């Protein structure tokens, strides 16, 4: 287990290293770094000073080293627009995005697993088929358009839910959270559902396929032969088996949920990192772009790592195989 952990850690560090080179090459070499990193409104003297400070007159490998050292110290430049460190700006916006992504994931799981299991247990029933048709639609619908339609229905025509912002937040352990106030929850509903839609479709498919496969297995028949009630068979024997792929996929998807939050945040004017990056791209606030990319890449690597480890905890077979390997 420990060996496995260490090996996975080393892989993660390697990927981070490669990504840092890519982002560095992308931002510092393809574009003109002077344009990217220095405020275009600065005068000649300021530019010359900034070039010196940032070491842009040094050879490329030395610049990369400087970039790495600065990044390790948490310094990825200052936002032109807000004039605060880019990292700080992103970290300020991060809780909103994380809250949205986590709520969406929970929504996807809490709705998707029962629906998917139902569809898997009754694949030929009308309800089962409708659930599947819904999930196919969920895959095909463009997220942003669904967001607009949600706003149209629930905010414009029915007037039930607010369409922009986080609403009232409450501080919890130093983090502002919407979910702690009723107003916040109302603001959260549409964006979370919008972001959850794709995940929901995915979970339904996974749960349905897993259930259909599991109920044909001998262990389910054996469990029935033991005289267990069907509630326990479905709730424990089938459920635990289908959870493995679902947790893996959802864990891996948490990263993409955060990435796709860009769309939902733009639609619902949700003040998270995603909206920040879009605004930054439109305003050419490049240090923020670089910082966002590095942070999200880092998050991805961490998420992939955690999922792999969780997977090995959940599935005893993998645990042993990996330990031996």
């Amino acid at each position, binding site marked *: 287990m420990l060996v496995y952990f260490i090996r996975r850690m080393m892989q993660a560090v390697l*990927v981070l290293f490669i990504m840092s080179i890519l982002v560095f090459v992308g931002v510092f070499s393809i574009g003109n770094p002077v344009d990217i990193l220095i405020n275009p409104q600065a005068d000649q003297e300021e530019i010359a000073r900034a070039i010196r400070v940032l070491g842009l007159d040094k050879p490329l490998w030395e610049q990369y080293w400087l970039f790495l050292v600065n990044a390790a110290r948490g310094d990825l430049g200052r936002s032109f627009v807000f004039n605060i460190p880019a990292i700080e700006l992103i970290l300020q916006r991060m809780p909103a995005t994380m809250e949205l992504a986590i709520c969406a994931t929970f929504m996807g799981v809490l709705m998707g697993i029962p629906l998917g299991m139902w569809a898997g247990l009754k694949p030929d029933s009308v309800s089962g088929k409708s659930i599947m048709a819904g999930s196919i639609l969920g895959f095909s619908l*463009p997220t942003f358009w669904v967001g*607009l*339609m949600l706003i*149209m229905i629930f*905010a*414009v025509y029915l007037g039930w839910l607010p369409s922009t912002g986080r609403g009232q937040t409450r501080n919890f352990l130093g983090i502002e959270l919407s979910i702690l106030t009723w107003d916040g929850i109302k603001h959260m509903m549409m964006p979370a559902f919008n972001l959850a839609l794709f995940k929901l479709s995915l979970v339904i498919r996974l749960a349905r396929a897993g259930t259909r496969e599991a109920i044909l297995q001998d262990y389910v028949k054996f469990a029935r032969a033991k005289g267990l009630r069907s509630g326990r068979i479905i709730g424990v024997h089938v459920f635990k088996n289908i959870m493995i792929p679902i947790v893996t996929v959802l864990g891996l998807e948490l990263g993409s949920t955060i990435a796709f939050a860009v769309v939902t945040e*733009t639609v619902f004017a949700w003040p998270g990192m995603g909206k920040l990056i*879009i605004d930054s791209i*439109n305003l050419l606030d490049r240090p923020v772009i670089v910082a966002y990319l590095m942070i999200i890449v880092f998050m991805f690597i961490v998420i992939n790592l955690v999922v792999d480890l969780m997977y090995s905890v959940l599935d005893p077979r993998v645990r042993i195989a990996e330990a031996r390997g």
Partner: protein
Amino acid sequence: MTATTPEIVAESAVAAKPQTPFRRFVSDFFESRVATAGLVVFALVLFVALFAPLISPQNPYDLTKLDILDGRLTPGAKSMDGMTFLLGTDDQGRDMLSAIFYGLRTSLGVGVTASFCAMMIGMAMGLTAAYFGGMVDTFIMRIVDMQLSFPSILIALILLAVLGQGVDKIVIALIAVQWAYYARTTRGTALVERRKEYIEAAQCLALSNKRVVFRHLLPNCLPPIIVVNTVLIANAIALEATLSFLGLGLPITEPSLGLLIANGFTYLLSGKYWISFFPGVALLVTIVSINLVGDQLRDVLNPRLQK
């Protein structure tokens, strides 16, 4: 799956239906009514996209034809000079139906071009990896794995942040996002095919690498690539629409469906739904029809599912 399965399948297929593989494929495909409907709808969409300038009631980008006084008319309303706007107009008095026709043209054009280029690059990479193996294989597949561990939108975002806007830029971004899927599919299939005896036979005949790869290996790898291709065209269209909606994709001069939807966003809140609604429906119909065709192709071309 064991190595014997395809042979058994082939034998029984030959015994059952004495017809060419292509005709069998066609008849299998049309067995599903849903898929047939999908294909018909997609053909319609394609027709509209190809002939948009001929069938549109109005050239939506000829500014001399637009009248700002016709702006934001509801569906079915009549213009100042007597023309009926079936799906209403946008803020500049542009007929939405015409705008959607032209938007489809752009969306499909970008999606198909990008997917096709990505397929070429990905297939070349996948075949190279599978045929040569060893270090080449490891190197290419590591890149593919790493790229696939990041969501497509993030990669597109990174590229567009670096490259800027434009049709060429978004095509490049879509290619960069998609080539890895093709590479992985091609390599996987090619590896299976490469172990089969006909490749060995071809190599024993001392045919050139080029000939073995292109005349023998590639044609046998095509079915799964075709399936992936349909799905990825739909994905490319959806991703392009999303990026355009975010303002990162196509310039305002060549509005795709995504941009049309984005334009209508402002007016949605005041109840003028049609500017966003109808382009979205067009997008949805396009994507769903492609996906239906893709699903059926996957079932028909999958040897494991053949009777």
